[in-house]
């Protein structure tokens, strides 16, 4: 699958996005350019109002840029949200099945794939549970399986672990890292948690706020698997946080 595709998974060139018109016109993104390698784990980091979710929406094709281009180089995108956003009237398995139903995949094949994907997120045997019968962390894993059911080459994640407790989040970092390495998917991971970004990312793109611009790009040169409480993660997180504070501080005047 990836053999025929180019090495660059995502090419963002001079993207700006405005909302509203006239005096109420707000600029969310200002001339953002970014290349993401195939199979890369990229974290988009920024304070409130940096347009990181807007950028993710553009990548996922939910929205179009005002100027500039977003080129997913023929790859499919899948999306995961902060709230697991499972459809409450369907079971876990039913939720994972929806993207496949939308693509017209036949029932036996869908069922087999659902079992496979739920096993991947280590929820085998939970297909018949309803979302309210699962814990928050489990719901997010169902949501992850659903994103994979889109056969996405680029996985867009919008603060997916933001609402979870620290213990669950820590374990889900391990899970996500494992699945990412296993599948070779390209991940664009939006977060405002610096440590989380350092824990997970190959690169961290720090966005400034109002409008969102690329302020700095950090390469995370720490061997995997990492632990969020390791010294090297903490060191880099301190550097990134310092830079983030500078960016936020500019809005205080």
């Amino acid at each position, binding site marked *: 699958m990836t053999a025929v595709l180019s090495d660059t998974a995502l090419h963002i060139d001079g993207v700006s996005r405005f909302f509203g018109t006239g005096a109420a016109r707000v600029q969310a993104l200002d001339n953002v350019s970014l290349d993401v390698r195939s199979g890369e784990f990229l974290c988009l980091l920024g304070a409130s109002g940096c347009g990181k979710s807007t950028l993710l929406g553009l990548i996922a094709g939910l929205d179009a840029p005002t100027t500039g281009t977003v080129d997913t180089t023929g790859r499919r995108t899948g999306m995961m949200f902060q709230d697991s956003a499972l459809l409450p009237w369907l079971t876990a398995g039913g939720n994972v099945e929806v993207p496949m139903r939308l693509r017209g995949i036949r029932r036996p094949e869908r069922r087999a794939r659902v079992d496979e994907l739920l096993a991947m997120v280590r929820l085998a045997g939970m297909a018949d549970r309803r979302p309210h019968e699962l814990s928050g962390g489990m719901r997010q894993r169902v949501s992850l399986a659903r994103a994979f059911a889109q056969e996405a080459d680029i996985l867009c994640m919008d603060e997916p672990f933001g609402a979870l407790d620290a213990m669950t989040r820590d374990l889900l970092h*391990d899970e996500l890292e494992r699945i990412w390495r296993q599948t070779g998917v390209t991940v664009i991971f939006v977060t405002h948690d610096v440590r989380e970004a350092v824990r997970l990312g190959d690169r961290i793109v720090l966005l400034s706020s109002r409008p969102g611009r690329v302020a700095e790009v950090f390469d995370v040169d720490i061997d995997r698997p990492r632990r969020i409480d390791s010294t090297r993660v903490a060191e880099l997180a301190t550097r990134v946080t310092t830079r983030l504070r500078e960016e936020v501080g500019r809005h205080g005047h």
Partner: protein
Amino acid sequence: MATEIDINRGGPARAGVGPRGEKLASADGLDLDALAGLDALDIPTTERRPLATRAWSATWPKIGALALFLLLWQVVVWTGWKPTYVLPGPWSALREFGSRLGTGHFWDALVRTVVRALKGYALAVVIGGVIGIAVARFPILRTAVGSFITSLQTMPSIVWFPLAILLFKLSEAAILFVVILGAAPSIANGVIYGVDYVPPLLVRVGRSMGARGFSLYRYVVAPAALPSVLAGLKQGWAFAWRSLMAGELLVIVPGHPSIGADLQNSRELIDAVGVMASMITIFLIGVVVDAVFNVADRQMRVRRGLVAEGNSAVRAARGRGKGRGSEGGGDWPRDDDSGGGSSGEPTGGPYLESRVGVTTSAE
């Protein structure tokens, strides 16, 4: 399957040891167990009481309320406030109702009334549904007729009868016309509100999965709107039934016995026992239909996690169900909900509850 998921557990060579001597492989193995353990702790527990207990606890308050009502009725009769040929006691009314069950006339009337109701209601569902979908879909239609639908809904259906009788004479068509006018606006409004209150996040999810146009409606909007649609259907039935009863009292088609015609007939003959027997019939039909709607509504809420076993959300919020603390956890504070609870209620839960509440309270 197992080989696929255990990649990390069996892959210390790949995982390696961190440059600073972090024991990554073993940490990995531990974390796999930790996740399974956390799942086991996190998963919300459900308990079901035995069927007989649930049936009894659902039934006895109803029996009690009914008994109390009959007693009050009897007490009023005993006071001699009105002579018994105007206000008969409950026993004579129930006896009359029982004896009617054996007559062919009663069943003819019952069948005609129920068929009228179902026919009118079915047409109202189709018409109201189509109008509702159209108004929800096209903003221009909403601007044009959206507020008229609500005004129409609040009009007492009985005021349509003079026009209906002029248009259709004393005929089945006149009754049907008013029943449809009574029920369709509620059903249309149920659909419109349902679509309006679909959580935007779910629409975004649908779109991110590739749903567009019709498929977005089929997989996301329609099921998300269902609670409100169901509330509209229920309210529509209430209006249809009231309109029909008003219609059967006013529009008596010769040779067509009906419950309403019987009721009117009994009044004209000053047959108070007959009046009461007819009203018992009308009441019982209402009870049966209400039970059907409640079963549908409850099933939907249970599926969506909007009902804790035997509890409404309100009751669950006031305190835990009986006997939960005793199982396993002893006197420790039970925190088995904290994982699920902290990350939010089932999507759209509170909204769905309130939506249903708002629509039905308009009855």
